């Protein structure tokens, strides 16, 4: 009976996780358009659609990032597929993208 408990401890230790930025070269490459100079909210929403959540009177937006079986990403929830990442975007008052961050997705309660 001890074996399952110790196996569980080892598995949990391997699964220790934290909130924060992630590095995924394939996804980052597909989000490369976000680095374009002068990119606006309209450009982002034309590519990704409406954000999942808005903050700070729309100056910060959050998207769920879903990775499809073929590796392509989408910000529109496909059925039965949880988001793998969260994309956070901050806009300047004139609508230009100021910064963005790709974070591990954490399920809300």
């Amino acid at each position, binding site marked *: 009976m001890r074996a399952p408990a110790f196996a569980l*401890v080892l598995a*949990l230790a391997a699964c220790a*996780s934290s*909130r*924060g930025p992630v590095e995924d070269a394939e996804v980052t490459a597909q989000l490369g358009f976000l680095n374009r100079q002068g990119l606006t909210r309209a450009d982002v929403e034309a590519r990704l659609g409406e954000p999942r959540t808005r*903050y700070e009177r729309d100056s910060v937006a959050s998207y769920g990032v879903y990775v499809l079986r073929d590796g392509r990403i989408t910000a529109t929830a496909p059925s039965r597929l949880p988001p793998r990442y969260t994309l956070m975007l*901050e806009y300047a008052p004139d609508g230009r993208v100021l*910064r963005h*961050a790709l974070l*591990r997705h954490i399920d809300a309660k």
Partner: protein
Amino acid sequence: MARARLATALLAASLAAGCIIVPTPPIPVDGIPQQRIDALEPGVTTRADVLMAFGDPTLRLEDDRYFAYDWGVVRFAGAVGGAPQAYPFVIPDSHRLAIEFDAGGRIARLHVFARMKTKTMEQEFEAWLKEGEAR
């Protein structure tokens, strides 16, 4: 004290139920590392900074005056039943980073709650919120 009582109760229950519980090193699940909390500066760090660093909060209260980020830290793991059908389980602590922002959108104060019982943590969080309302 509460932790010692719980550990004793768990041990007694384990022996009675045919199960084993082992302490683990702290294993955070969706946690916020202490050094990243230490980097948050009241009066300096903005709501947007927090969102870009930690993403969507678990709780948004009072028009985003308060954010809370929740996570668990596993401190015990165990299994109940005998081979070949032993069922594993874990016992996590509840953790919450609570942040209050000022009218300018900068951190006014923050606090990390860490309790074995979620109910106790929620009660302390409620008291913390009331301190903010009283100011």
